[in-house]
C-alpha cells in the first residue's frame, strides 16, 4: 500500500467515524459538548499513557472515556442544582480537567511520547507510515490506527440502527419519549459513551482539539442542505469523506499536517455551502414561482 493510499484510508475512516455520532449532537444542539469532552478526556489520556507507556492501550481508552462522561453527568448535576445554566455547567468542569492533563503532560511526561503538537493536531501523517501498518503474512491491512476507528464505526452504526427511533424522539420531544416509556435515559447515556469513545479513539489521529471540527462541521453543513434526518446522516458521511480527501490533498500539496487541513476544509466547505444556500434562498424570494 502506498503512503498516499494509507493516508487517504486513515483520513476518510477518521472523518466518517467522527461525523456519525456528530449528527445526533448537532440535531440535539449539543455541539459544544464535544469541545468540553475533548478537553475533559485529556488527563485520562495522559494518565493512561503514564501507566501503560502508550497512547493506544485499552486502559487509557477506558480511563479517558470515563472522564469524558464526567462532563455529561457533572453538567447534568450542576444544571439540576439550578445554580448554573446549561452551558456554564460544562464550562465549570472541563477547564479543570484539561488543566490537570496539561500539568501532568508538562511535568511527568517529558520522557513519554506525547508532544503538545500531537495533542493539538494528532499524528495522522505519522500513523500512516509503513512502520505503523497492520500486516498479516504479506497482506498490508493499512494503518493500525485505522482499525479501532473502523470497529467504533461499526458499533456506532449498529447502535444507531437499533435505537434510531428512540434517538430521534428523545432528540425532538424528550417528554413524549419519556411518557411513552421509551428507554430514553439508557439510550442517551449509551450515545454519550460512544461520543466520548469517539473523542478518545480519534485522539491519536487528529488530537484533542480538532476532533470537535470533524464531529460537528460535516453534520452542520449537511443540515444546510437537507431537512430529513435519514438524509442528514447520509449527507454528513458523504461530506466528511469528501472533505477528508480534499484536506489530505491540500496537506499533500502544501507539505502540511493532514488533520488540521481536514478541519480547515470542513470549515471552508461549510462557508461555501452556507453562501450558496443563502444565495439560492434569496433568489427564490426575489423570483416567486
Amino acid at each position, binding site marked *: 500500500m502506498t503512503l498516499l493510499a494509507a493516508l487517504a484510508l486513515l483520513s476518510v475512516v477518521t472523518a466518517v467515524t467522527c461525523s456519525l455520532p456528530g449528527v445526533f449532537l448537532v440535531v440535539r444542539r449539543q455541539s459544544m459538548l464535544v469541545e468540553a469532552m475533548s478537553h475533559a478526556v485529556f488527563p485520562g489520556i495522559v494518565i493512561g499513557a503514564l501507566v501503560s507507556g502508550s497512547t493506544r492501550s485499552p486502559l487509557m481508552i477506558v480511563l479517558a472515556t470515563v472522564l469524558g462522561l464526567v462532563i455529561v453527568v457533572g453538567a447534568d448535576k450542576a444544571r439540576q442544582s439550578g445554580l448554573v445554566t446549561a452551558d456554564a455547567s460544562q464550562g465549570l468542569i472541563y477547564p479543570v480537567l484539561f488543566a490537570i492533563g496539561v500539568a501532568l503532560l508538562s511535568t511527568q511526561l517529558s520522557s513519554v511520547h506525547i508532544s503538545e503538537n500531537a495533542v493539538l493536531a494528532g499524528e495522522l501523517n505519522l500513523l500512516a507510515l509503513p512502520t505503523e501498518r497492520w500486516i498479516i503474512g504479506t497482506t498490508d491491512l493499512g494503518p493500525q490506527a485505522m482499525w479501532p476507528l473502523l470497529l467504533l464505526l461499526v458499533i456506532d452504526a449498529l447502535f444507531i440502527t437499533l*435505537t434510531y427511533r428512540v434517538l430521534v424522539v428523545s432528540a425532538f420531544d424528550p417528554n413524549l419519549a419519556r411518557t*411513552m416509556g421509551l428507554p430514553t435515559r439508557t439510550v442517551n447515556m449509551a450515545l454519550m459513551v460512544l461520543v466520548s469513545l469517539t473523542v478518545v479513539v480519534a485522539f491519536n489521529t487528529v488530537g484533542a482539539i480538532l476532533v470537535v471540527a470533524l464531529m460537528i462541521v460535516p453534520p452542520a453543513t449537511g443540515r444546510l442542505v437537507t431537512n430529513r434526518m435519514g438524509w442528514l446522516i447520509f449527507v454528513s458521511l458523504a461530506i466528511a469523506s469528501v472533505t477528508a480527501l480534499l484536506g489530505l490533498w491540500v496537506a499533500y500539496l502544501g507539505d502540511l499536517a493532514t488533520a488540521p487541513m481536514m478541519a480547515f476544509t470542513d470549515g471552508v466547505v461549510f462557508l461555501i455551502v452556507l453562501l450558496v444556500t443563502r444565495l439560492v434562498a434569496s433568489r427564490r424570494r426575489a423570483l416567486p414561482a
Partner: protein
Amino acid sequence: MAVLSIRDLTVAYQQQLALADACLDVEEGRIVALLGPNGAGKSTLLKASVGLLSTIRGEVTFFGRKLREVRQRVGYMSQAAEVDWDFPTTVRDVVMMGRYGRRGWLRRPGAADRQAVAEALDAVGISDLAGRQISQLSGGQKQRTFMARILAQDPELFLLDEPLAGVDVASQDAIMAILKGLRAEGKTIVLVHHDLSSVPDLADDVVLLREGRVVASGPVAETFTEDTVMQCYGFQGLKSRAAA
C-alpha cells in the same frame, strides 16, 4: 372509578413551591380545563402527574393504577413551544412518533401504523401537509400536527398542555371540534387552557389554580363563577369571562 386521581401532589423548583398539595379527580368522558394565571402550576400539574418532574410528595393513579402499568392508555402532549421545530423531520414523521409507544421502538412501522397516521392527519385536516418540513408550519399547523400525533397514539386519557396556544381561528375551531368528538367517543381530556371566553363552550369541568394551589374545581356551571375567577385571576379574568 376516576380516570385520573391526584392526591397531595407537591412540586418545588429550587426553594420555590410550584404545586402545593394538589388534589384532583377526573371522571371518564369529561373535558377538564386547567385554568389560572401564568405560573399558577397548570403545566406543572400535568408534567408531575406523568412523572416528568420529580415530586416532593403525592400520589397519582390512572384508571386506579400506576402510570407504568397503563402507559398506552395515557397520552401526554407537550406545549408546542417546548420542542425544537427546526428539527430535521416532516409532519408525517412527527405523527408517526406517536406510534412508537404502542408497537415498540424496535419494530419498523408497518401498514397499520401508516394507516393510523394517515387517518390522524386527515382527522385534523392537514393531510396535504404530510411531507412538509416542520419548521415551515404556522402556529395552528404545529398544534394540529401535535393533535394528530396524540390521535395516532390513541390513548383513552388525553393530557394536553396548551393545545390552543398560538393558533388561528380556523385551527382553534378544528381542534375544539376534535376534542368534542373524542369526548363523544368516551375519551377523557385534561387540558391547560388560557382563553377563558371559550371555557363554557369547550369544558365540562374546570380546575382553577393560583400560586400552585387548587382554588376551586368542579363542573363549569357551578365552579366557573365570577367569584372563583376573581379569586384566581383578579379583575382581568373577570373581564375575559364576561366576554363569553
